[in-house]
């Protein structure tokens, strides 16, 4: 009696699929990164910009556009994508809920609310934003975790609680925006999520945070595997469930907070990418985390490049594109998981 059929690719074994993904995805990310540097509303040459760099001609238009506009933006797409995706992977493992993702359960909204609040309270204090984003993300993540741990609620309940928390925090964002219109201005880009304002000074500190945290998540990969078997089984295997859960939620909040601090509230990356990658390589986190890093990086690089060239010289915030793609995907997910949910 077969309960569910998995939509896997029968001609390619799991082992080969993992190897293929681990080799091809970084190559694809590299190609998309190069494309993100080359494509845009201005007709500039990356090759010329590189030649300018080595010849010391650092004031040419080609150099300035490629190195000061497109490069930080491409780095931002790569970092934000990988951070949000791994944050999603980790949250899904800890809550044992395939539908939990930073934007669904309110982690992104928590970061956004604290950022907007910080902007209202500490006007023009740009340095406060990453800290506020981290604490906002952590607040929301811990709130959901506490509800999950204390009530022992099922997966669907936790997701619904997350949606409610997200709604409350989003109301908070709009409340602050309405009450402090002079302090919190021009935040629509932040709320939708976009990379148009990214520069080296915003992306490099976030990158310095994201890269080591991604490595730390890899260190936790075996424990995350154990958590996927359920808390009781994981505990029986010697995993300290509560400590591990808390530690990796802090890491997830650091990742989501760092991404939100420069890219705003980009949605669905943390949901879409882990799901696609899990279908390809399964739930073993030492494979799932690296392929999610490159898969999400590739996705956001493509989305950002499209957002720049589709309506050039106008630009569509990448968050809109992600939501356009992510919304239908989420519906598909709910429908395909319907039989599995408790």
């Amino acid at each position, binding site marked *: 009696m077969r309960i569910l059929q998995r939509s896997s690719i029968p001609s390619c074994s799991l082992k080969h699929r993992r190897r293929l993904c681990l080799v091809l995805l970084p190559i694809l990310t590299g190609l998309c990164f190069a494309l993100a540097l080359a494509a845009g509303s201005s007709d500039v040459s990356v090759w010329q910009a590189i030649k300018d760099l080595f010849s010391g001609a650092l004031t040419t238009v080609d150099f300035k556009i490629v190195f000061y506009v497109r490069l930080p933006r491409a780095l931002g797409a790569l970092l934000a994508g990988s951070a949000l995706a791994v944050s999603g992977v980790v949250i899904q493992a800890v809550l044992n809920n395939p539908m939990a993702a930073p934007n669904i359960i309110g982690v992104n909204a928590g970061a956004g609310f604290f950022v907007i609040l910080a902007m209202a309270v500490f006007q023009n204090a740009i340095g406060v934003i990453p800290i506020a984003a981290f604490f906002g993300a952590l607040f929301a993540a811990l709130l959901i975790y506490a509800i999950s741990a204390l009530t022992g609620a099922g997966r669907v309940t936790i997701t619904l609680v997350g949606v409610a928390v997200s709604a409350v925090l989003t109301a908070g964002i709009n409340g602050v925006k309405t009450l402090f219109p002079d302090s919190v201005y021009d935040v629509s880009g932040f709320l939708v999520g976009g990379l148009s304002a990214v520069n080296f000074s915003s992306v490099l500190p976030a990158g310095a945070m994201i890269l080591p945290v991604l490595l730390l998540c890899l260190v936790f990969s075996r424990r995350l595997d154990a958590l996927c078997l359920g808390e009781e089984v994981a505990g029986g295997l010697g995993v300290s469930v509560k400590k591990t859960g808390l530690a990796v939620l802090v890491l997830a909040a650091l990742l989501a907070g760092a991404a939100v601090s420069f890219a705003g509230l980009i949605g669905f990356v943390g949901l879409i990418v882990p799901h696609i990658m899990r*279908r390809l390589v399964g739930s073993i986190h030492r494979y799932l985390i690296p392929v999610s890093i490159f898969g999400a990086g590739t996705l956001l690089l493509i989305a950002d490049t499209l957002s720049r060239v589709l309506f050039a010289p106008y630009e569509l915030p990448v968050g809109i594109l992600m939501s356009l793609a992510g919304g239908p995907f989420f519906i598909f997910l709910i429908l395909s998981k319907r039989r599995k949910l408790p």
Partner: protein
Amino acid sequence: MIFLENICFSYGKEPFFKELSLAFQDGQLTVLIGENGSGKTTLLKLIAGEEQPQSGCVFLDGKARKAYTANERARALSYFPQQRPTPEMTALEVVMMGRYPCVQNRFVTPQSERERALEALQAVGAEDFADRFMQELSYGQRQKIYLAMQWAQDAPNCLFDEPTNHLDVRSKFSLMEDLAAMKKQGRCLVCVLHDLPLALRYADRLVVLRQGSVLADGAPEALCRAGIIERAFGVRVRVLEDGEERAYAVLPAKQA
């Protein structure tokens, strides 16, 4: 060997277990039976450490459970809970998780550990499922995989909470035969079962619980002969013999 000494436990104000003491021997399959809410699962959770007693102590192989580190405890005791999520892993990967407490390098799994996991799959006759995703397997096949995981964990004390639930007849017998094979390795097995005929046939010892107390404790035959099972569950028990095979049939009690 598992020993519970003067365990007191309550969910609310009312005490549930009052100074309960029980010992479970190596090389024996002890089955806990009782009506719903009699405390079978709670007892397993107390042994596993999922619940903490208000007083009293649980000993594993002569050492207090609290004195073990989490990893040491996982090497001494394995736990098969009633419900688990189905991870997106292959059967072999799930069984290899059983080796988690024993593997030092948790990033690269050595070949020897993989072989141990394959042996465990063979032991429960599930080696054909090794490369299949858990979602592709039936409920009974998944139970086999979790049993293989426990086999691979290689702990001398094993707890099972209703492992035969939702299984068809053939799968039930097959799973109980696997438990019998684990017992022959000298492990101490404690199992909660609702299926009385299965419990009577396979248990070396039955512990009948009622509202947190031990109503009866002994070999299945002795408990049947004394009419304890019949009185405890309000049923009639009949012995069926086929050569050396012995089985039990459970019938509803006759209306007065």
